[in-house]
């Protein structure tokens, strides 16, 4: 049984549904990322699980127990806020020890565990400082220590890396992942950054308009996006429109070519089919589809080419070397049948 089960959760703000009969499961000890754009409802989902937003319908079960009757302070899970929400009038140690104090832990026990928690995030030397005297990355780690010190079975993280700069984000992400493994707590992390979600999480759930439209391992999402939105959100995928043929092929006049995806699209003949083709799965050779380079963008060790086929389709492909063909240059494109992913 999953640690967290969200069933048919609906939240309305005014008349609009922020969450629309949403289903989600978080297994024990897993790292799940909720990926979505702004307004997709991902932060609302976290706030509803934490108890700050009352759902209009649906259930939230943690370890099989319905959380509905419990106010936030009695829910056995903790949240790390996007802005960290550190108490500015308390020292770092008092911030971290706040939950233990509320739980009535003995002073000696509290001091020991606060020390251990600060050591875990490498902030032993900052115990007596005020949060305002710390850098953004240090504040983030205080917030993490404060939420993890109570050893929750489930930790909710709202854009935990969102306020950090790019260099720090990568390192902190790896630390987050290591902490998750070390503590064994399940993490449910909200992010709008697909690279972050794919790199850190065991499972990724993609949210659109208050619904989970696809969930799976990062690999599954990357290789088999279910919808145009997922394919687009995960980045750098071409979407090729075509018409289903009786033999399972797809006629794509914009290329022009007849494509044969390795996975059957299952559509009746004559109906429209959309296929995703990732930029890095397009190869360059002597045989295949002719195209002309219209634009080349340097991408650090590779070039992202924008190409136009003779049928007028615009495709993006990754040239594996820094110096690729210049605009106006003619190339020939090919790909494996398995690179073509039919979309819902």
């Amino acid at each position: 049984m999953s640690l967290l089960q969200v069933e048919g959760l609906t939240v309305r703000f005014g008349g609009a549904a922020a969450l629309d009969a949403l289903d989600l499961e978080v297994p024990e000890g897993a790292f799940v990322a909720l990926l979505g754009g702004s307004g997709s409802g991902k932060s609302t989902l976290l706030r509803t699980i934490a108890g700050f937003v009352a759902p209009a319908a649906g259930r939230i079960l943690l370890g099989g127990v319905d959380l509905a009757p419990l106010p936030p302070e009695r829910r056995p899970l903790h949240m790390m806020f996007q802005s960290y929400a550190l108490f500015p009038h308390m020292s770092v140690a008092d911030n971290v020890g706040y939950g233990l104090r509320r739980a009535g832990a003995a002073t000696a026990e509290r001091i020991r565990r606060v020390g251990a928690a600060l050591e875990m995030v490498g902030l032993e030397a900052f115990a007596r400082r005020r949060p305002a005297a710390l850098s953004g990355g240090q504040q983030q780690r205080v917030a993490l220590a404060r939420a993890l010190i109570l050893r929750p079975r489930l930790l909710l993280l709202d854009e935990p890396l969102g306020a950090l700069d790019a260099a720090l984000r990568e390192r902190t992400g790896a630390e987050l992942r290591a902490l998750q493994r070390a503590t064994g707590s399940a993490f449910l992390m909200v992010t709008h950054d697909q690279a972050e979600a794919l790199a850190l999480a065991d499972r990724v759930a993609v949210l659109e308009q208050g619904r989970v439209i696809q969930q799976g391992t990062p690999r599954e999402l990357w290789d088999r996006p279910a919808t145009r939105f997922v394919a687009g959100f995960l980045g750098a995928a071409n979407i090729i429109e075509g018409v289903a043929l009786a033999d399972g092929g797809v006629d794509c006049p914009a290329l022009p070519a007849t494509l044969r995806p390795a996975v059957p699209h299952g559509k009746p003949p004559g109906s429209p089919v959309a296929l995703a083709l990732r930029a890095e799965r397009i190869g360059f050779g002597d045989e295949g589809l002719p195209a002309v380079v219209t634009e080349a963008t340097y991408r650090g060790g590779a070039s992202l080419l924008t190409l136009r086929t003779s049928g007028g389709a615009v495709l993006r492909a990754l040239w594996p070397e820094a110096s690729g063909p210049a605009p106006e240059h003619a190339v020939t494109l090919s790909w494996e049948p398995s690179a073509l992913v039919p979309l819902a």
Partner: protein
Amino acid sequence: MIGRALLWLVLTFGVATPLALVAAIALGEAAEGIPPVRFPWNGGAATDSLVLIATDPFYVGALLSSLEVAALTAAACVALAFPMALGIVRARPGPRIWLLAAVMLPFWTGFLPRMGAWIGLFRDSGWINGVLVEFGLPAQQMLYTDAAMLVGMVHAYLPFAVLPLFGVLLRLDPRLEEAAADLGAGPVARLVTVVLPQAAPGIAAAFLLVFIPAAGEYVIPELLGPPSATLVGRVVVQEFFQNRDWPVAAALSLGLLVVLLPPLWLYQRLGTQG
């Protein structure tokens, strides 16, 4: 910056000049004539008045009871204003503006009519006694008591306490309370460990904003208080108009200023910190 410049302007022309005049009178001698004082530069230099108000039990007592009444007023105002301000801050933005307007409403109506209304409520044949008698209870002497005076003081100064508290509570990040709740703090623990400490500068500001003017209050004790409430404001008026002893009146005013300096200094420090 502009606020500070304006403050200095007011201090120089609105405070320093009158204060120098008061000091000059306090250091002079009472005399027959108009004005009834001989200034130090006319050979009337004396510290008698200052010594008198610092040593005579009557004047020292007036200063102390003024501070006591002001402290009680300020404490009661803060105690009432805190839940009011919290309620206004937590109201939705639509109702919030009207609740705030209701707090400000007394400023738009005359001060004396409002005191007159309290007299009408408190006096022996007033409305409150009317209701008591209606229910078969004995009528109470309420007007010209310490309680009536305190009610009038709290009524008059309450808005001064609500506004700074409203300001500080409005700026409080609601995420902090959510974080406290998330870490296991119930409503009372959230109030004590998160809201109150963060509102502390506002509480101090509200207290002092009431305490400082209330210490020199004259009209309310005069209208609602007992004759025994010899507060500084009343004594100053008596000395000035009835005894025509301007030096003692001026010395008392200076005495009040001196005892209010520490809280003023404290308020200034809180202001620069916040």
